[in-house]
């Protein structure tokens, strides 16, 4: 139910009746006199007769039988009631509507005398489904509004944090917010060795907001490249991984090692838990330093697998808070985070993992074939090649790559050869190839859980960004379809090295 208008619309030039039809839903009748319809129905909604098309304008008649021209498609045609005898004539009307840009064809119901109630029921059913559809749209809008409001809150908080740091005249950009100094002991247990495969966890004694780096202290370690320290920072109130590190032991040193966050945490304050595990080593686990005995059970170092205390100590640690974007001085063994999945609410753009790109394959094998792979994963370029045929389209398929909380899928469209002709690119989110095909063919608009970027023409050297917004989140994983075709169809597809590059997903929250 979208409002379709065109440059032809000019209220001054139109009759009053036509303008009326642009403001409310209507029913159209074909081959049925107005008087044949129950009075109750005609009182409930405006019902107009479709008489035909003349000079590109639809001829309609009102309840008195008076005819008038309609140049614009009505705002919302709920249904068309047709005399079964006149069946087939509705094509003229539907064609006219389509020529006016109406994508959702109105449903056509046959009108049988004596079965008016059944027909009214069908209309009501249609209305009810529209109401539900609208409700879903509104809730989706609310969700987006909430995301925007959260984003705004976070920006406010982040900005306020920056302001507060800016105001700290004469102070360092970093504060040591908490320090639990290592306590040496000859009988010190090796918590990493004692812990299960999941490693150890330690609740941090400061709130998340403002945390920039966490330092851990190694009393002893073997500096090996084939062994890595995996660290994660998790918020316990919502179990989000806000930052993670994968660091070869060769980059760690004895003493303090600073796990730097990609950006200072902001937003609502949460309780942080640091999880550490070693991968690739079974013996000679690094010896993490511990602080003194910890009387508070909650803060004793724990086994990450079962959350039980391993010792009566906390880890030795320092927690640094600071201004976003500021690094610790060079003397520190500063280890930046690898993860990009910092989560602080609002919309987040996540690049599609290369492992997922490699799952891409050709979907419409029944239509096209090449001597080479028409769909070619190019993980090193973070891209997928999608070679268009000279006629028709090439459709690629990335299975189950679209999670339920997706808002948008985006990709850059490039042609990696200057001699290529222009190529059209499109992205679709759909459950199967049949549905995807309908969307690529623009036979209908996307439904719930679907998205379509529309076709974008690209010339060599251009790199436009395609965006397919999901119509409504449906709570299931969807497939992603990519497609290319020659702009001139059929056309010369030599050198048409079309690629979807830097595919990313925008998620909410």
């Amino acid at each position: 139910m979208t409002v379709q208008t065109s440059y032809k619309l000019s209220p001054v030039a139109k009759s009053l009746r036509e303008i009326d039809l642009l403001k409310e839903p209507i029913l159209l009748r074909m081959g049925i006199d107005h008087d044949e319809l129950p009075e109750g129905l005609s009182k409930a909604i405006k019902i107009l007769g479709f008489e035909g098309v003349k000079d590109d304008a639809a001829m309609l008649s009102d309840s008195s039988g008076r005819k008038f021209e309609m140049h614009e498609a009505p705002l919302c045609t709920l249904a068309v009631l047709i005399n079964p005898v006149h069946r087939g004539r509705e094509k003229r009307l539907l064609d006219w509507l389509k020529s006016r840009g109406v994508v959702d064809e109105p449903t056509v119901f046959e009108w049988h005398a004596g079965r008016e109630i059944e027909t009214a029921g069908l209309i009501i059913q249609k209305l009810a489904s529209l109401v539900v559809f609208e409700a879903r749209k509104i809730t989706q809008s609310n969700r987006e509004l909430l995301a925007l409001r959260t984003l705004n809150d976070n920006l406010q908080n982040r900005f306020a944090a920056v302001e507060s740091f800016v105001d700290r005249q004469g102070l360092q950009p970093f504060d040591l917010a908490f320090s639990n100094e290592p306590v040496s002991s000859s009988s010190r247990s090796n918590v990493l060795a004692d812990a299960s495969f999941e490693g150890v966890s330690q609740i941090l004694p400061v709130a998340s907001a403002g945390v920039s780096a966490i330092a851990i202290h190694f009393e002893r370690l073997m500096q090996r490249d084939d062994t890595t320290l995996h660290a994660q920072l998790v918020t316990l109130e919502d179990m989000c991984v806000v930052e993670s590190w994968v660091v070869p032991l060769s980059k760690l040193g004895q003493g303090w090692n600073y796990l730097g966050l990609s950006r200072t945490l902001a937003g609502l304050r949460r309780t942080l838990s640091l999880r550490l595990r070693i991968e690739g080593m079974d013996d000679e686990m690094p010896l993490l330093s511990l602080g003194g005995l910890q009387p508070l059970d909650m803060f004793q170092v724990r086994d990450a697998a079962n959350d039980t205390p391993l010792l009566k100590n906390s880890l030795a640690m320092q927690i640094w808070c600071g201004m976003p974007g500021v690094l610790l001085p060079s003397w520190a063994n500063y280890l930046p985070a690898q993860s990009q999945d910092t989560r602080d609410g609002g919309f987040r753009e996540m690049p599609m993992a290369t492992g997922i790109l490699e799952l891409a394959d050709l979907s419409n094998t029944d239509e096209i074939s090449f001597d080479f792979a028409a769909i070619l994963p190019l993980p090193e370029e973070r891209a997928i090649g999608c070679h268009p045929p000279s006629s028709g389209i090439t459709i690629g398929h990335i299975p189950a790559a679209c999670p339920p909380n997706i808002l948008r899928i985006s990709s850059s469209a490039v042609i990696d050869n200057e001699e290529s002709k222009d190529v059209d690119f499109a992205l679709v989110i759909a459950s199967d190839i049949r549905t995807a095909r309908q969307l690529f063919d623009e036979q209908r608009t996307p439904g719930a859980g679907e998205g379509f970027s529309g076709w974008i023409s690209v010339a060599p050297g251009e790199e436009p960004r395609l965006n397919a917004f999901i119509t409504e989140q449906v709570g299931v994983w969807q497939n992603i379809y990519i497609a290319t075709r020659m702009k001139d169809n059929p056309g010369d597809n030599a050198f048409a090295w079309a690629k979807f590059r830097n595919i990313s997903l925008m998620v909410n929250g």
Partner: protein
Amino acid sequence: MLDQIKRLREQISTQLPSDIDPDGPPPTRVAVLIPAYKHSVLLAEAVESVLAQEAPFDIAAVIIDDGCPYPETGEIGRTYALAHSNVFYLRKANGGLSSARNYGIEFALRNFPDLEAVYFLDADNRITPTAIRDILNFMKSDDKVDWIYPNIDKFGIEWNGNYTTQYSRLLHLTFDNICEAGSLVSRRMLDAGVRFDESMKAGFEDWDFWLQAIGRGFLGANYPFFGFEYRQRAESMLRDSNRTREGILTYIRQKHKKLFAAETLLAWEHEETPRYAAIGMGTYAVDLFTDPTVEHAKCSLEDFVTRFWAAKAEPETFGVPPFLLWMTAAHREALTRLGLIHNLLWLGERIAQKHHFVAIRFERNNAKVGIDICKISDAEPLADKPFGWMCTFDIFSTCADDASDDWARSLHKPVPSPNVIEIVISGPFTSREMQSTALSPTNALLATLGALRDSGYRLQSRNRWLWRSVYFPNRSRYFELLRHAVGARPVMPRLAHASNPLRVGFLLPIGSFGGVEKVAYAVAQALKNAGCEVHLFLLGKPVYNRIPENDGVFKTVNFLADDYPLWGGPNQFAGHDLLMGHDEAAKAELIMGFLAGLDVVINNQAAPVNSMLGELRRRGMKVLNYVHVLDKSKMGRDAGHPYLTLAFEHVYDTILTCSRDMAEWLHGMGVPDAKLMHIQNAASYALSSKDQEAILAARRNRPQRDRLNVLFLGRLDAQKGIERLFASVRDLRQHSAPIDWKIIGSDVMDAGAGGSWKERFAEIGVHVEPPVFSSRHLNKAFAWADVVVLPSRWEGAPLTIIEAQRLGCVPIATSVGAVGELIDHGIDGLLIESTDDNVISRELTEIIMALSEDPAALRRLSEAAAERGGSLMWEHSVEPLVNQLKSWFPDRLPTLPVETTLKLVEQTVPTTPERIPSFERFPREAAPKQRDEISEIRPLQIAAAGSAHMHNLRN
């Protein structure tokens, strides 16, 4: 990202089977109830946070539109309900938050048969996506927990409050509503009928909700990582509620009176934050209790050390008992046996807060139980080995932090560096109980200190580890919340026994051998026999003169042991100085704490405590006053406790009198008849019928003698008519009458210019014997005597008459007070009606002479007296009182055989024949004696009652 996608995939895969379940959607396990009123836009945010829940079970969001006037609320609610199968929109007429939540509860119970819990989410708040999953798991992990409440993480006006501490009902009632409405509530609670009070529209309805749950035995728990987000703006309903907080709290306190009762709060303190830690000596075990006689928690010394340092690090989250005690279990048991352990802890707590350390020492004394408190100094050094030590957590904490322990180590010295007070407890301790232990309490104290100082936890940094702000009070100081709630300081640490007997406190100014005390002890014994648990409270001198027959009557003996004036005050009523509750000298908090935890108090002429009885009654205790005698000033003005009774009449539920005469006087002075209850006196001590019969038989079989044995038993003072007695004795001796005298009693030092009565009697050849108190000596005296004389100027209903009569000893008494109710003149005793001293002395002499000459009359009187005295029993006398208690406290007293005659007390008094003037029936002769009733308090009362116009009759 991979991690996240993996996580999402896992969630989806776990959801898939149910998604394709052909039987329909998975059952709803949790319903989130969202009352909506004027939060139209934010409502969507709350609903969205429910829809975003990541849980392997179905969660329904139920929006209850409480008649919101904003159409947008309905639009949003309907929209979400249309769009999502698990969102429900209910609309109802406006009834307030409670009504909306209840509406949602009923809807959820009706429509979700598999419901396990509901969560209350206000329309302007939010929860994180993992909240419901995690808190439901947390709740199900502990079967004892029925609701889970969050820390408070506010956004908007940002604030994060630490609510993480073991759930405490004591804290919840006395501090604040520590459980946000945004809590998960088990179905069990809802099935038990816990609902929001719909009459509460101004706020704190959630507080009331939790109190209902507590009242039904449910418990909550905090989940530290809840994920609850509370929207705080500058103005809110909560802020409005806080403006009317006191009014709402008054309603809540009234509604949940039982929960707010001192005994309930005490029981919770004992369970949740015990007030005392008794640290074992050599056992490495620590007992944690408020009442040591009730089952309580224990822990190892190591655990105690950990808790100690945890409490130092995060005091609002972790706590240890605020008072520490070093004493062996055997010594604690000895104090329990004597009924003194609660009193000792109460005194120790009181003193420890003003001084560094309290030393405790026992002294063996079979004649009395008592407390002596002294400050240790060069003049009064510590005895060899204390039996125990007490101090506060604060002092011990300072010692643990101190760089050196020299200061504490000086406790070994006779005069330690710390300020030390010694409590000396006297009592009939056994030899074994008096034995010291292998490890002295001083060493145990220092060993505990050493364990704390050497602990690795001590090295822990002083940084705060919990990042949320402190809101709760120090967990080691909940005893202060209790004090504040019951208006007491400190609160007697005595819990109700598990069988919950009726606890009756007898308040006395002193614990001597006076008639008032004896009546109180006898009534206490009778109430105990009726199933009550009776306790003795002495507000004056901290000494309870022991009467072996009374051992075991009182469950506990309690000494106020404070500088507490027993009479007087800055206010005046009918010529009597008196205290009122607001007077500083009333020591309101002290007295409230001293008497905390009782169901009934019976004031036995402890004058100043009247000022606090109103407050006790307001807190649910039944208050009785026992009135014995209308005293007289030197000038002859009526004075004493009956007048105080008139002053405080409003606070008494019942006024007990020992005579009909006193009841009539009070009624005549304006006390409603319904408040008055006459308890007929009976003998103060028990005597078996066999022993009684033996004495009576001996009397009957006594050879005919020509001399009369005359006894006086009592204080040698003006009230007892000592001048009258002296005159009569002198006359009879001058006439060489055949009389043998036995005068037993003690001199009163300020008896006037005449000097010692003892000496004056000696001058006329009569030896005055010292007072006797034991039943054996009393029986011996009454058995010896033919007659007992009481020429008193005023009396109540003297026990001496009844006890003498019981053994066939004929009473000759002035007809004052209720004496006439005890003697039928000429039948079972003889009355002297005159008020003139000379006439009375003359009549007394004549009556004694007449009896000495008429053995037959004496025998007839003796037998009638024995019959009368033997018929009076306390069990019968207190029956109206027991019935009254039963009516106040149904089911708290066992059912005893019911007497067929309700007014048995009155009917046991033999029918009085017409009075016969003494002169007509008996010749004049002989002299009486009177039994000593050491009543130290009565002269005090008389003195104060009369102010400057009254003579001070006290020593």
